[in-house]
């Protein structure tokens, strides 16, 4: 695997990651997927989860609480409101996400509430997966 693509992860606080990658695992809302070079152009929403950007036996892991992804011929761009390197995520950060999401669920109704509940559940699963 010598072919690579450009992987960028941006949050409102700045660029979290910008590197070459030969494959990127993405937690897309409707199931996990892996983007590789020459992947068909795609725009999708992301659920809380872990992004793994692999390049030459090295894997960088990032944690997000949702966002959007745009995959093109040679680029994968992820937009996430909260994005951290996996090693930087602490249980406090995780808890603050969950508290905030719980509040949001409480203050919304109808379809929006369902969506937020799914997101909250996703965060809890993520917390368990992170093993903090």
């Amino acid at each position: 695997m010598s072919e690579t693509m450009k992987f960028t992860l941006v949050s409102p606080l700045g660029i979290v990651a910008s590197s070459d990658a030969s494959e990127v695992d993405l937690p897309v809302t409707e199931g996990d997927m892996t983007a590789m070079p020459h992947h068909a152009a795609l725009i999708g929403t992301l659920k809380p989860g872990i992004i793994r950007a692999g390049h030459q036996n090295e894997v960088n892991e990032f944690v997000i609480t949702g966002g959007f992804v745009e995959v093109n011929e040679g680029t994968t761009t992820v937009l996430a409101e909260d994005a951290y390197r996996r090693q930087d995520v602490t249980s406090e950060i995780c808890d603050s996400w969950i508290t905030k999401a719980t509040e949001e669920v409480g203050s919304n109704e109808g379809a929006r509430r369902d969506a937020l509940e799914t997101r909250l559940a996703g965060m809890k699963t993520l917390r368990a997966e992170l093993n903090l």
Partner: protein
Amino acid sequence: MPSLKDLKIRIDSVKSTRKITKAMQMVAAAKLRRAQEAAENARPYAEQMATLTANLAASMGGQASAPLMLRGKTDPQTHLLVAATAERGLCGGFNSSIVRMVRERARELLNQDKNVKILTIGKKGREQLKREFETSLVEHVDLSETRHIDHLVANRVAGRIEAMFVAGEFDIATIFFSRFQSVITQVPTERQLIPVEVEDDDDTAQRFYNFEPSETEILEELLPRAMANQVLTALLENAASEQGARMSAMDNATRNAGDMIDKLTIVYNRSRQAAITKELIEIISGAEAL
């Protein structure tokens, strides 16, 4: 002619004013650096968000199924003007220039028989707009407790705007803020929030995307966020502009105070010398008379 004592008091008071303005200038300079950094860090996200929105909107191609937030109403009647100003004064024309822009736009819309609603962010704008448009002020966002502008603050503001839009309280929303160009130049700017403005970019025009989930669902998620991001950008630019404006205003004030002190000191020295000369003349002419 003020007495020597009056002059002395005056000089001392201007000196302490100068100390204060000097301190404010330095505080503003320190805050400006941070605000500018925050604004710059937020830029890549904003750019990506704009491209993504443009790509999505291009593939939706103005279809009737596009969310209302994107295509907007055909006959907009009610305008929401979001006036983003500062919580504090003493920053030159920063607040006034934003308010002036909002005021002009509001008058123009009222002349066209449109409804105007105003949402104010920051105390200063509200105070100034209250005089003329008291009945139009619908909401106010208080930022005095907010130490850092981040996406959470912006989401809160955007959340309110979105809720009002969903409730059908307005058709078009525009935000007014000051774009930070340099420390001495801040440009009052208006930007349309709803319907979400799409940048026309040639290379985004024709590309075919797969959507996961459907494009309508993505748009429903994306548009509020794109709008929130516009608000965030505006607030960050505003924060940097405010500090820049305050810095140059306080720099001017410090310099003026210095000039004033110099002038007063000359007057003080002259009057003192005049008093001495007068006394000498009195003594000499007294001695001559003997």
